[in-house]
């Protein structure tokens, strides 16, 4: 009982520590410019003005479109490639398999910041700087190892006998994958897609280094360029509102993600 209490207290501290800044920014986003700095946790003067402002600024809307577009395209490509690679890694023995796994691990571990200047130069030369593909490419590079890892863990959970059984039941390799393996892997693919999307959505480093205009700036970067409606106006409220807006999809994803209890999905396939 005592231990339970201790753990509960510790958990509560961690949760509060993590949540206070988030709630603070939510609170800021609902404050009027005048009350911004009053230090009250609960706004005395509620307003939706900040939200109205950001959706009226081209800058933000454009950045939102960029964010969504770039993250979606990167996710789709990374998950499709990752699924194929993970399937091969978990099912086949081919020369260079451990090398492939090793290299992808290396990429995942690589400090991204060390790649920023070379990438900057390369993209300038190749004409990719400040374009969607200019961000999509590095995102895929870093998301692929993540995708391959999570997906191969999922594929490894699916008993190989199922694929053999499908073949014995008269399926071609493609049919076995489509009708038996894919439905079982779907939750894994979905989970991976969410993780990859969040990774792309949250990125700041590449987005600020490899863009220079509204044409391809994503929201996290656009936020840092926010100036408010006029030059003299304090943009804090607007920045807070924008921050809240881009956090919402993540919160939704995480809530949805939790519902998917992936373990137990393959239970009953084999002896239980």
């Amino acid at each position: 009982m005592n231990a339970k209490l201790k753990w509960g207290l510790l958990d509560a501290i961690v949760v509060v520590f993590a949540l206070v800044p988030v709630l603070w920014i939510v609170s800021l986003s609902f404050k009027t410019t005048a009350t911004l700095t009053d230090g009250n946790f609960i706004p005395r003067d509620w307003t939706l003005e900040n939200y109205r402002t950001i959706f009226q600024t081209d800058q933000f809307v454009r950045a939102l479109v960029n964010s969504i577009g770039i993250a979606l395209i990167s996710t789709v490509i990374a998950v499709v490639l990752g699924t194929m690679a993970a399937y091969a890694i978990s099912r086949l023995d081919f020369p260079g398999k451990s090398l492939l796994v090793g290299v992808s691990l290396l990429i995942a571990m690589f400090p991204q910041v060390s790649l920023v200047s070379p990438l900057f130069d390369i993209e300038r030369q190749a004409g990719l700087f400040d374009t969607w593909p200019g961000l999509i490419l590095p995102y895929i590079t870093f998301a692929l190892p993540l995708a391959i890892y999570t997906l191969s863990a999922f594929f490894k959970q699916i008993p190989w006998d199922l694929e053999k059984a499908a073949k014995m039941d008269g399926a071609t390799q493609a049919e076995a994958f489509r009708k038996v393996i894919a439905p079982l892997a779907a939750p894994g693919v979905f989970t991976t897609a969410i993780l990859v999307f969040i990774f792309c959505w949250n990125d700041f480093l590449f987005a600020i280094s490899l863009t220079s205009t509204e044409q391809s700036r994503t929201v996290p970067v656009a936020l840092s360029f926010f100036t408010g409606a006029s030059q003299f106006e304090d943009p804090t409220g607007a920045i807070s509102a924008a921050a809240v807006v881009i956090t919402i999809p993540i919160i939704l994803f995480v809530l949805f993600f939790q519902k998917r209890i992936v373990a137990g999905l393959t239970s009953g396939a084999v002896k239980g």
Partner: protein
Amino acid sequence: MADIVLDKVTKSYPDGTVAVHGIDLEIADGEFIILVGPSGCGKSTTLNMIAGLEDITSGELRIGGQRVNDKAPKDRDIAMVFQSYALYPNMTVRENMAFPLRLAKMDKQLINQKVEEAARVLELTSYLDRKPANLSGGQRQRVAMGRAIVRSPKAFLMDEPLSNLDAKLRVQMRTQVSRLQKQLGTTTVYVTHDQTEAMTLGDRVVVMRAGYIQQVGDPQTLYDSPVNLFVAGFIGSPAMNFLPVTLESGLLRSPLGDLPLSDRLGSVLSAADAPRKLIMGIRPEHFEDARLVEGTDGFTFTAPVDLVESMGSDKYVYLNVDTRGGDTPASTDLAELAADAGGADLPEQNGLVTRLSAESRVREGADARVWLNLDKVHLFDPSTGTNLTLREEVAAG
């Protein structure tokens, strides 16, 4: 339905393991054949080659007279039951059983009819709409069987289909499998590492070891005339007793005493190449309480009784005899059998297991006079494992 012929079939895996060494086997149409052997002897590999799940490295596989080496599993028209059952967890029992038929693009109504029929035979009708996760082990096993029988394939392959069931259910399912096979008359290749299952199920049994076929025959032949030490020790439960014997001045010197050479054994040992040190094999039932067989030909010896297990119908009597006396000839066959038995966590036995009539009065702790039927003993060459007595019988016709 079809016959299956393996013609010098070899399998070497990419890592260099040769799992199956050029085996020859002819399986007749409608036959129920069992592949048995210790774990790792290449049974599953052989089965997977017949199924088409593993490539055949060399040799030829013919099903129904047709070479199928290069055919995909789906073009071989064989069904398989896996040890893990391999039911599709996202499909109901009905969908699982219908899967092969749907892939064959069969008419919906016909599919339904066939699935219901199979479910009826296997007593699964009330579970048709359940998912595999909500079934017991025995029910899952039956669904796996159902998925195999619905499409009436040319042959069934089963890889240790009962080994995940508890002992009682396994015995029940064993009879059910046997009955089903008789009823359908479909050629069946059944893999098991359990010799009891092998003996009770099959028309013929193939004993395998380390990628080689040791002996093929009906269960009784394997039991009565094992070709070598390995088969002798593997088939039969409790296992055959093995004793080191030495041929010396016309007598067989054994831990039981000096055995006279009968005509049968004499002719075996008179062969020019017969070794002087041999291993003698005696099945437990070839012993008897000497009191009950006074006057019958044979050899009688006295040994201390270690343990008596009364089965009602007869008695298992464990005798304290040093069967591994100092100069036991080394035999790879025996070493391997011991390793295999070790897998079933039996302590290695030193002593004789005998099966005596229920009327026997032997008592634990006392000495017993035991009779041994010399006509039934086998003599093996320790270096090759060959059954020398069998060679003589075969030669004698």
